[in-house]
């Protein structure tokens, strides 16, 4: 009990200190490095909050992929040397902003302290209905069954984000290759890692996806690992990044949401409700959707990190 409290206090203090470090940092690089460390501490905080699914996602996406994205962006801006900065607010304005933010923090803190015990929740309803889903992991049950519509819309949001990022391409490189020009390095430590790690990553990702039905894990965590493996081989230049005009690439990104929506419509036709799964086949249906969605989400996440097309497609 005491040990647990000590761990919590250390985690909270460390995370708070790093967050303050982020806003005090003079250089963007420092801020990003502190932010990545902050994300890893938060992942541990999620473990302490009994949210292992969230902890895995926070470590993989919140710290990992976001970190790569921000560091790559800083590198590109530092090389280009023309970042649009805005004017800093004056001293008085800063003080008022600080006071306002402090008020929001105090109000939120009061809300946290004033929560009724036990808090009203849906845990009992989930527990009562989980057996019908044939799933063992309640979070997957919520994502795929009880709030399946949210997950479908989220998958659609990822597709829209990819379209949004791609649309920012200058006319000259529209349909070109995403990301900054990157020299291929077939020797050296980066290439060695990119040759060794992806097979292991694939097995681990499929495992996380597969156990997600009954234990912490699932498509988002698996997709983040797969995306990381893809980025590793792209950054090492071992595999060429496909141009955005590539139809297989577009099909991969759209397949997951499309299948999910098709199954939802089939449920409307057969069972009489959108996203109603066929009786007796609930778990297999969910697993198929999870696998296809994982592939789509992985492709979308990796392409979102690469950014807008900025090079012509290779002939």
């Amino acid at each position, binding site marked *: 009990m005491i040990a647990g409290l000590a761990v*919590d206090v250390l985690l*909270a203090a460390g995370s*708070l200190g790093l967050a303050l470090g982020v806003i005090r940092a003079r250089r963007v690089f420092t801020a990003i490095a502190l932010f990545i460390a902050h994300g890893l501490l*938060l992942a541990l905080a999620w473990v302490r*909050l009994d949210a292992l699914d969230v902890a895995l996602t926070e470590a993989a996406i919140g710290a990992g992929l976001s970190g790569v994205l921000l560091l790559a962006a800083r590198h590109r*801006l530092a090389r280009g040397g*023309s970042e649009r900065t805005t004017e800093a607010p004056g001293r008085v304005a800063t003080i008022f902003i600080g006071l306002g933010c402090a008020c929001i923090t105090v109000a939120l803190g009061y*809300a946290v302290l004033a*929560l009724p015990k036990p808090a009203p929740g849906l845990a009992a309803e989930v527990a009562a209905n989980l057996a019908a889903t044939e799933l063992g992991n309640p979070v997957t049950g919520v994502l795929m069954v009880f709030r399946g519509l949210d997950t479908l819309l989220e998958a659609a949001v990822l597709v829209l984000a990819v379209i949004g990022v791609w649309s920012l391409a200058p006319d000259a490189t529209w349909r070109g290759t995403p990301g900054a020009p990157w020299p291929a390095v077939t020797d050296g430590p980066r290439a060695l890692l990119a040759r060794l790690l992806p097979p292991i990553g694939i097995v681990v990702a499929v495992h996380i996806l597969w156990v997600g039905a009954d234990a912490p894990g699932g498509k988002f965590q698996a997709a983040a690992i797969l995306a990381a493996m893809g980025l590793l081989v792209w950054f090492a230049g071992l595999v060429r990044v496909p141009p955005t005009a590539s139809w297989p690439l577009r099909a991969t990104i759209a397949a997951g949401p499309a299948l999910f929506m098709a199954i939802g419509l089939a449920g409307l036709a057969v069972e009489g409700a959108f996203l109603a799964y066929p009786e007796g086949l609930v778990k297999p249906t969910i697993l198929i959707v999870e696998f296809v969605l994982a592939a789509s989400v992985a492709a979308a*996440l990796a392409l979102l990190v690469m950014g807008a097309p900025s090079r012509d497609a290779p002939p």
Partner: protein
Amino acid sequence: MSATLFGLLGAALVGIGLFGMLVGTQPLMRIVCFNLLGSGVFLVFGAVARRGGGAGFAADPVPQAVILTGLVVAFAATTLAVALVLRLAGNEDEDRH
């Protein structure tokens, strides 16, 4: 106990992130602060989830699933913001040439 502590941490992160977003001058810095703000919101929600445990679950799975969704959507928003910043910087390059 963990729930209260991390809930308060979440409240603090919301304030810190919002402050950084409002007073920051560099776009990337403000995007990082936007992510701090988001993680604070998720933590407050996670604290609520932890409090709502019961029926054999250590925490309420519904808010946890929503946080998962939120993390991925926040990431998508971040990538879009970063792409916009890079495009603006690129445009400025073109203007100067």
